[in-house]
């Protein structure tokens, strides 16, 4: 195969996801005339923010060959803690939010240390974290749905618009940029990919796999904490199951975006497109007045189709394989 052909192929692979997104948008706009309106699109972006912010940190756990299932519980809990600090302990907003973030980082540190130093599989460690963080959230909130009454400046985060877009959108864009640079341009990014691609080889090249993984879990929990704070400001509510199940939306977004759950590869921008797609699908179903009981079924099916398309699998290739004839390109 010539070099040019290789390059075109790579280019196509890079943009395949974008084409799938356009395809999804085309289908949705055909099915509902109100889909492709500025009001609706900014609405989707608004709802995509939470998932988008979460993916920017979460991404590093699959890249290093792990997983973090605790991000949903972490986000719910951080909203509750931030509210308790600001409205019960009456700590000013900025220090309160930093204390909350510090707590999130601590949780990530625990997840990372238990996985690497005690050799417990990350699936189990973070599943336990998901449960005990939910437990703490229930205790702190008494199991109630808290309406966040203030402070004024905190509630503004979710309400004020700059150039027609809500502030959380800017937070998300900033975090996506930071995460993208972190992954593509820094030593830590290289080390994460190396640890996920081949831990032994990375170790022989002087990378410390344990430290790299611990930082990955800290980033994951940290981003989830920020997402929880933003969510609290947007919804002006905090309750323990608020973000439960978000970990699955986050995993879906990241996987649609081309990150391998086996480690060694990942894309921040891809994950963002994935988050937008998850948002579009949910939004589209609402616009079409589809009864809520059908939503999970359709969402699941659409995601499955998107994933298959993104594998670059062509129908003829599958048929050939099943018929047992050799692939002429192989």
């Amino acid at each position, binding site marked *: 195969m010539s*070099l040019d052909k290789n390059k075109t192929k790579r280019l196509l692979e890079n943009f395949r996801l974008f084409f799938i997104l356009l395809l999804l948008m085309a289908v949705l706009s055909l099915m509902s005339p109100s889909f492709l309106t500025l009001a609706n699109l900014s609405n989707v972006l608004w709802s995509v923010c939470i998932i988008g912010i979460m993916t920017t940190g979460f991404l590093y756990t699959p890249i290093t060959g792990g997983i973090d299932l605790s991000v949903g519980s972490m986000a719910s809990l951080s909203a509750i803690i931030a509210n308790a600090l600001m409205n019960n302990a009456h700590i000013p907003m900025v220090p309160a939010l930093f204390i909350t973030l510090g707590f999130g980082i601590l949780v990530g540190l625990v997840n990372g240390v238990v996985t690497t130093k005690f050799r417990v599989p990350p699936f189990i460690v973070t599943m336990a974290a998901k449960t005990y963080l939910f437990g703490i959230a229930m205790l702190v909130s008494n199991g109630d749905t808290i309406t966040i009454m203030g402070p004024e400046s905190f509630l503004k985060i979710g309400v004020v618009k700059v150039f027609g877009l809500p502030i959380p959108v800017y937070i998300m864009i900033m975090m996506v940029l930071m995460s993208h640079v972190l992954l593509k*341009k*820094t030593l*830590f990014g290289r080390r994460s990919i190396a640890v996920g691609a081949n831990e*032994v*080889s990375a170790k022989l090249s*002087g990378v410390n796999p344990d430290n790299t993984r611990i930082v990955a879990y800290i980033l994951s929990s940290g981003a989830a904490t920020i997402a929880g704070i933003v969510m609290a400001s947007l919804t002006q509510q905090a309750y323990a199951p608020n973000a439960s199940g978000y970990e699955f939306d986050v995993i879906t977004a990241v996987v649609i975006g081309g990150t391998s759950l086996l480690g060694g590869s990942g894309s921040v921008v891809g994950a963002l497109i994935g988050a937008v797609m998850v948002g579009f699908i949910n939004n589209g179903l609402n616009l079409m007045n589809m009864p809520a009981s059908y939503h999970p079924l359709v969402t699941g099916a659409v995601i499955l189709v998107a994933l298959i398309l993104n594998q670059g699998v062509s129908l003829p290739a599958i048929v050939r394989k099943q018929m047992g004839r050799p692939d002429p390109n192989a």
Partner: protein
Amino acid sequence: MSVELMQSAVEGTVASGRLLECRNITKSYNGPIVLDNVDFSMKRGEIHSLVGENGAGKSTLIKIVTGVTNRNSGDMIFEGKAIGIEHSKVASQELGIAVIYQELSLIHGMTVAQNLFLTKEPRMSALPFIDIRKMNSLAQELIERYGFRLRATDIIDDLSIGQRQTVEILKALNSKASLIIMDEPTSSLTSTESAQLFSIIRRLKDEGIGVLYISHRMEEVYDLSDRVTVLRDGHKVAVLEKEQIHPAEIIRLMIGRNLDERDTLHEMRRNDREVVLDVRNISAEDKFTDISFQLHAGEILGIGGLVGSGRTEVVRALYGIDPLNSGSVVYLGKPWKPHVSGSIRSGFGFVPEERRLQGIMGAISITGNIGITNLDVVRKYGFVSDKKELELARKAIGLLNIKPDDPVVPVGNLSGGNQQKVVVGKWLIRDLKLLIVDEPTVGIDIGAKEEMYQTFERLSAAGVSILLVSSDLPELIGISHRILVLRKGRIIKEFAEGKVTEEDVLRASSGLIEGDGK
């Protein structure tokens, strides 16, 4: 039960039946011929050793007998039954051929009995439930018949490597195997465990089972075998009867006599330049003991010995992967505590023995693979300079003529030789002082091999010291300036000057030092 077995053994001998008969077996893997008209036969109740250097065709012959791969031509008869070209693993198991592999195939977390009866579990009469009581008592019966020190209810994880091997053997016996193939079974056993294994092997022989034994350890071959078949370069060179078996003779046959082409290179030479690495009495528990040597600037020091002799362990410890228990190391005149990232910073390079598992990141580009060991070079504060990284990659590609020369291609897509060039190349662009290479040319083509040797010689001329671990004797002798031979974790022999032949090294590795033939 045992009477029956005795009888069948007797019947076997009476029929003097050949157990396995292979005639004119030929096999090539797309091109080069690995086995050329090889004859091989085994009798019932015989311990038959198959010997030959790496690449002589031993594994291929075993794979053909066990149906892992198919021969191109030739006849195969097992217990009087002709076996077609389209042989398979399942078919060979059903016929009664069992293999005890180097990497054991037992299931961890299960008991001995569960492993022995896997997929053949006794059922409670007509019910789809396993009769655990019956399974355990059947397994215990089998264990006791052979007098093994095991319990049917032991969990595999709690057993030593030697005990696990006996479970493997029991598994073969339980499936009524009449031919048991053992591939380097003692490479990870202690000497007591090896002795136990040998008595088991003799027991199997008495039961009329044929044992095909593969080992590089000549004294084992000598002690055990009834007959020995020697392979060299895909040909059967000789079949030795019991009274003809002599370790020195086997080694001579394995190597052959046609090795003068690179003869001039076999001259060892001392090096008087400054000492780069001074290793003093280092030991690591269970791995190696009291290793001392000096490595000079520009010297290529070969480390020979059998697999399991401790050679890989020594170089891993010097690079800082595994800890040392005692002894000291002086590097460039200063006391040195081995530590991987410190080693890299101070001019070490390390090419590990298993390229795919330890050397490369297959899914990552050439640039990424080269960049990861050179992060200290390409960094600007915490950031990576893409430009500089790409420059390094292009430099390595140019230096070693890596194909394809496109730096973004994932290394997994490259040929074995080019993959290895990437693993070596990432060190060459550094300020290198000491390169450690472990089996650097396994599985790569001859062209790439030659280029690799030229690279080592270039490095040596430039003053870089090289520690070369290799099982490939022509390679070890051909490029080393000096050779240390390890045996059972100790340096048993040093070849520092004069001519060295493969035979010398092999004899030292097998513990048959000069004139000490058995």
